[in-house]
């Protein structure tokens, strides 16, 4: 298994320090933590809201592609998850 396969088989979840929430007034998903907030753009929000610690990244990508009637999202999703991991937003 190579690194990409490992990631595709992983089941990430939102890190416990953060709370993911839809904000009606801001019309976006946000990550809340002590005294702070990360505003997520559209695609980041759609990825984060699907993380439940049980679904694999592979399934997550398939779901996104189905929900948005598109293909070829793997590269973008993996790139985002790498950033999210560096920021501490996700547990893998």
């Amino acid at each position: 298994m190579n690194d990409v396969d490992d990631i595709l088989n992983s089941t990430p979840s939102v890190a416990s320090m953060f709370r993911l929430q839809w904000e009606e007034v801001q019309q976006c998903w946000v990550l809340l933590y002590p005294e702070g907030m990360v505003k997520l753009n559209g695609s980041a929000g759609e990825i984060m809201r699907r993380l439940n610690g049980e679904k694999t990244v592979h399934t997550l990508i398939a779901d996104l592609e189905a929900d948005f009637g598109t293909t070829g999202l793997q590269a973008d999703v993996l790139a985002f998850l790498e950033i999210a991991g560096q920021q501490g937003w996700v547990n893998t």
Partner: protein
Amino acid sequence: MPTTPTVGPPLWLLAEITYSCPLHCVFCYNPIDYTQSGAELSTEEWFKVLRDARAAGSVQCGFSGGEPLVREDLELLVAEAHRLGFYTNLLTSGIGFTPERAKALKEAGLDHVQLSFQDSTRELNDFLSHTKTFALKQRAAELIQSNGWPMVLNCVIHRLNIDYIDKIIELAVDLGAEYLELANSQYYSWAQLNRDGLMPSKEQLERAERVTNEYRAKLGDKLKIFFVVPDYYETRPKKCMNGWGNIFLTITPDGSALPCHTAKLIKHLEFPNVKTSSVKEIWYESHAFNHYRGDAWMKEPCVSCPEKEKDLGGCRCQALMLTGDAANADPVCDKSAHHHLVQEAVAFAQVPDAQRVKVQPLVFRDPINSRKLSAKV
């Protein structure tokens, strides 16, 4: 006629629910005339503030004061804020933080407790001497951990404790902190009164930064340390509160709505009150909140400065306190005609204590001093 710039929602609600406090910190930012404040808002009045603010888009809610644990309805306020979907923060000294209250607050849905330490009773070295103050902080820290809250500690740094920054960091590690904010005192209210006694020398600051970096290297991810430098040592001011009436909404114990803790000292502005205005009216329509938004209010050197969007001319309160006009550039900026006032304060901070001829005694924050000093205002 300058147009009102569009502004986003009041994302951060600071609920200062009481000015009562068992401590007497010399660096307190509560107004010196806090004893002249009107009657505290009732539980129901705070519920309305929370509901209004949430509907307007507030999402972070800080419960502060004074000491918020003094209010017996704190759990009710937290529960309501939680029910509304706020992320709730308790900013406390830990005094009054019993196992029963911690449990109740956890059940009410409190998300985070920020514990201050090295706050002062009348014994400034009380904490470092491991007296009962430390035992109290230890108990509070244990309650924070056992209730599953992140361990966030805040320590105000000033001339009298900056040389012990290594001990402070080690105490934070002992208490199990995950985050430590070393906040160099800003000079507002009681801290401004006591400024000469609180401002560290450049040498002290540089040493403290060095020590902090050594600990950062040693501790790695075990403890995240934030070190906030006093703005008097900069040549450009801070973007205060991220902009006047931009993100932060402070509601004081008597319901006054302010863009920051100390804005009431800007006497020519009449600040609205939540008893008579809704949060949306306050935020979007009030004269006071609109007054320093945008740049139409700016004077030189701010108005034609290429950096004005970066810091918006700094802090209005500081401009007023030091230059007499809230619309002036914050004199921390070296473009300000009044920058010498900051330089003079900094120069005095370099004078060793032993060489200071006239030493103003520290004024401790308490109701007697507040009333005495309010009479002069």
